[in-house]
């Protein structure tokens, strides 16, 4: 009797394990819809994921909208459940106001880092006198109420040339991140600059204006490298660093290197299609993020393991508590132990 009971337990365990085997193979054909929205910076990653995932699961329809980080969170925390998006991309961590929306609507989320990006500070290629700026100089230029209208007022020795500023508009996560990192308070910026949500307009502006100074996502620098001059940023130690894959990846491009995130709705994560998409993204993260058409800096592999773990264990909420010190590194925040 006891042996047959043992056998029965074995079979129950075996049958119980079958679904796990199914997940491991991940080849069962799924169908359904996954609605992705959010930051225009994160959008290329999600579009690339959707495209590659289609080969794997052709019956799952993934839609990717581009509403900006803030606009994406609005759709993520919609009052009407049917209108909520499943995944939203963010080029900055979630804000307290958005967290309160989460409490209000009951939409719980899993926060996952996906890549590193940098904000490029650029000038016109004919500008020969300026190769780098310090954070203090950038702060003096961009602070609200700044009266700097001429290059000669930025640093002694700069020529007498009118300064023209270009930057992203207020719906942009890049604007949020730059103001936080440079000015010190999010969304605090002087307003007398040419603002546009379309980074290509900023590129064209800086390209055609001798006295221009502008900033935008690093991804827009590369295809336009011939038309722009990239500046090094001196975080205060007298050693200016220019953004590139290495300096963004190892954190030495301070303080304008930034992590990018995706936020997955905890309810949506129960759906097989959403689950499969996120699993697929993290299984292929490096390939997707560093694809030459996406061109961001992949996180070290340990991050992707930790992120996938967080997703599988459904770790809810943000590691960016409103009162947490903003000096913590991404590794500290997510408890990633990095091999040196």
């Amino acid at each position: 009797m006891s042996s047959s009971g043992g056998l029965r337990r074995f079979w129950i365990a075996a049958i119980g394990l079958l679904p796990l085997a199914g997940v491991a193979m991940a080849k069962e054909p799924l169908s359904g819809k996954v609605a992705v929205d959010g930051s225009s910076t994160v959008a290329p990653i999600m579009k690339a994921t959707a495209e590659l995932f289609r080969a794997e699961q052709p019956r799952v329809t993934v839609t990717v909208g581009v509403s900006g980080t803030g606009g994406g969170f609005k759709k993520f925390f919609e009052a009407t459940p049917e209108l909520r998006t499943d995944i939203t991309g963010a080029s900055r961590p979630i804000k307290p106001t958005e967290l309160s929306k989460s409490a209000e609507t009951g939409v719980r989320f899993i926060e996952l880092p996906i890549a590193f990006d940098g904000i490029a500070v650029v000038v016109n290629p004919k500008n020969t006198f300026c190769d780098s700026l310090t954070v203090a100089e950038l702060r003096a230029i961009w602070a609200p109420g700044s009266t700097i209208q001429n290059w000669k007022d930025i640093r002694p020795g700069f020529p007498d040339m009118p300064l023209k500023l270009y930057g992203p508009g207020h719906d942009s996560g890049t604007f949020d991140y730059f103001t936080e990192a440079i000015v010190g308070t999010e969304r605090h910026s002087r307003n007398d600059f040419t603002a546009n949500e379309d980074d290509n307009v900023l590129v064209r502006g800086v390209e055609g204006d001798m006295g221009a100074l502008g900033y935008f996502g690093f991804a827009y620098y590369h295809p336009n490298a011939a038309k722009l001059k990239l500046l090094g940023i001196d975080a205060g130690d007298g050693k200016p660093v220019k953004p590139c894959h290495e300096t963004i990846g190892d954190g030495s491009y301070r303080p304008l290197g930034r992590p990018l995130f995706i936020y997955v709705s905890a309810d949506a994560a129960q759906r097989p299609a959403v689950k499969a998409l996120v699993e697929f993204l993290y299984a292929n993260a490096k390939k997707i993020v560093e694809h030459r058409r996406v061109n961001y800096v992949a996180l070290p592999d340990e991050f992707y393991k930790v992120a996938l773990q967080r997703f599988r264990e459904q770790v809810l909420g943000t590691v960016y508590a409103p009162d947490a010190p903003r000096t913590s590194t991404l590794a500290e925040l997510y408890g990633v132990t990095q091999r040196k």
Partner: protein
Amino acid sequence: MNAPPGGYRPAIGRRRIVGRLGLSAFVALSLVALVALGALIVQVVQQGGGVISRTFLSNPPSILEPETAGVYVAIIGTLWLIVLTVLAAVPLGVGAAVWLEEYAPRNRLTRFIHLNISNLAGVPSIVYGLLGLAIFVRSLQMGRSVLAGGFTLALLVVPVIIIATREALAAVPPSIRHASLALGATRWQTIRHHVLPAALPGILTGVILSLSRAIGEAAPLILIGAVSYVAAPPGGSLIETVGERGAIDGAWLWLRAAMNDGFTALPVQIYGWIGEPDEIFHALAAGGILVLLVVLFSMNALAIGIRAWQQRHRHS
């Protein structure tokens, strides 16, 4: 041979010169519009002519391989929008215009309605996007679907259709109405068989003009939630669904799915490509603009065709 009173001098030579100057000024002004249009088309063809191919028309968008990216999903989305907009806006617009022009008394209320419609025709399209988001997407629970998109664009074109239809109806000579009524036809028979057919060319022109504006709109569609990437048109493949579920069930399923799916349209796709950093996408955007222009020209051609056909049949 006294000079005419008032010191009139014939000065025919001078008047002719002024006349010629005026004529050349007007010709020059018309040419400016024509040259601007020509330059635009030449530039777009230069930029985007190279990307037009069979695959460009039959492939979904792609960020990883822009060389094989296409506008298939966007074309189908735009066709959906055209059909839904026409279905919603034409009966509404023409019906309202018929009542206002043929039935309604000329009083303060109708003047007020007319004034409002004229104002509505000038409201920026993004405002209709907000309205569509509140009414169709949220209140009527259509979601971010092609249905909500079509109805939003219908809101945008209805005022223009009403105005154009009213003008077309007003241009029908009253003698036609009088003759029909005198022969014992009812008011509706008069409108149905004589006034509407006579006004049809004008109505069609109004419909086509307003629709041409609507299908080029990106802002209201983005506002109600048109997406920037989707690999399949609304409802997926009709043929596949019918193949799996049979003609009636399949078509019904497909239609229901189409009314619920996320969608994109040509102007949204073009806007998305213009925003990409790499120049290869800007060429794709120019190609998309060419396709949009072709859709527009074919719509105009269709309207001209219907008009010609209709006029031939009326006079034979």
